[in-house]
């Protein structure tokens, strides 16, 4: 059973994380492993909800941390390590192309069980389990473009301008995708 790591957003934790980031950038693998344990769930959550595929989310999560290890020397502490890592994770996910075929196939799933296995292991939500699972499953069943914007905006809290920059599209496009996602989710949840 994997250890559940929760995000501790306290200033002390942030300082410890940044200190570990500095040590890891200097080659300290133990410090990097601590960073991994402190952030893996959040990174995995982002990857899982963006691609709606458990196996792919695991691969991407590993890619994010390998990439982080490679790029740690570029982390200058201008933002928190958590913020830096999260943006790196978004880049890794959005640059991923391999998931496209799997996602396309998944949306043809006549049983409507799309992505359900990607939501196993939800921790730390105040929502009732039934509602939570319904919402996670409905998000997983969204078309990729709408899902990406919904996850980044309504789940992760990014602004349209930031999302548009990350996706390389206009804010008009992200607003349209968000609108579409919300209506599809409402329809799915009221079924």
């Amino acid at each position: 059973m994997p250890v559940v790591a929760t995000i501790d957003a306290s200033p002390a934790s942030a300082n410890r994380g940044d200190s570990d980031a500095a040590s890891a950038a200097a080659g300290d693998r133990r410090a990097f492993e601590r960073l991994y344990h402190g952030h893996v769930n959040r990174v995995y959550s982002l990857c899982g909800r963006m691609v709606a595929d458990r196996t792919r989310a695991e691969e991407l999560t590993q890619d994010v941390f390998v990439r982080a290890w490679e790029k740690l020397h570029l982390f200058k502490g201008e933002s928190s390590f958590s913020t830096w890592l999260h943006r790196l994770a978004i880049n890794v996910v959005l640059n991923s192309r391999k998931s496209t075929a799997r996602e396309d196939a998944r949306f043809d799933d006549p049983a409507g069980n799309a992505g359900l296995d990607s939501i196993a292991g939800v921790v730390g939500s105040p929502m009732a389990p039934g509602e939570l699972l319904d919402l996670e499953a409905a998000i997983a069943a969204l078309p990729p473009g709408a899902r990406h914007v919904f996850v980044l905006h309504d789940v992760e809290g990014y602004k349209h301008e930031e999302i548009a920059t990350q996706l390389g599209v206009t804010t008009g496009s992200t607003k349209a995708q968000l609108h579409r996602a919300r209506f599809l989710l409402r329809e799915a949840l009221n079924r």
Partner: protein
Amino acid sequence: MTGPMRCDEFERLVDELLDPGGSEPVRAAAAAHADACAACAGLLADLRRLRADAARLGTLEPARDLWSGIAARLDTPVIAIADRGVEPAERPAAAASRRRGWWMAAAAAGLVAATAGVTTLVVRGTSTAATAGGVGGVLASGPSAGAPVLRASNARGVDAAYDSEIVALHALVARRRASLDPATVAVIERNLAVIDTAIAECKNALARDPESVFLKESLTSAYDSKVALLRTAVALPSAE
């Protein structure tokens, strides 16, 4: 906007009431419509709840430990070879970054050094100073240029020094194969095949001329190229 908002307009503009910013007149008109229309008020309530629930979603936990796979990719094993100037097993991230960016160049340079130089010499069956001097420039541009030379007494000694690392790296690459881009895998395999050919030719030449320092250096250089290529392959991200 002229006149009261219609339901279809409300549906189109309802996000103005959910997200900060936007046009104040539009927000006011939409709010007024929702006050007067039960159906649109229900829509607004549903979407507000959806937005709130999305923000309250917990974190997902991977069903298996992912660290071991990450560690394996970071942990490209490095054997301690005397006088080879090998860096310690735990390298800084910056070095890892340099390795990744360098891999195509390493492969290309390795191929040039291992094939253009070594193969030519080996095929000619000579290791004279004059001939070696003729390809010195090519060899100097290879990845092992400037690196201390492995002090192995023969080809078997060089083999033994690299074997364990190459076997371990091959196993890691095999494990990652499915997650790598097929085109990348094909490039890696082509380059490995060329380097392996150069290694085999070096060994054959050393069998005939076991004291040739040049051939030993060439063999070491080819092995260095192979290890560098394998290490890079291990550290590559999954297919994009």
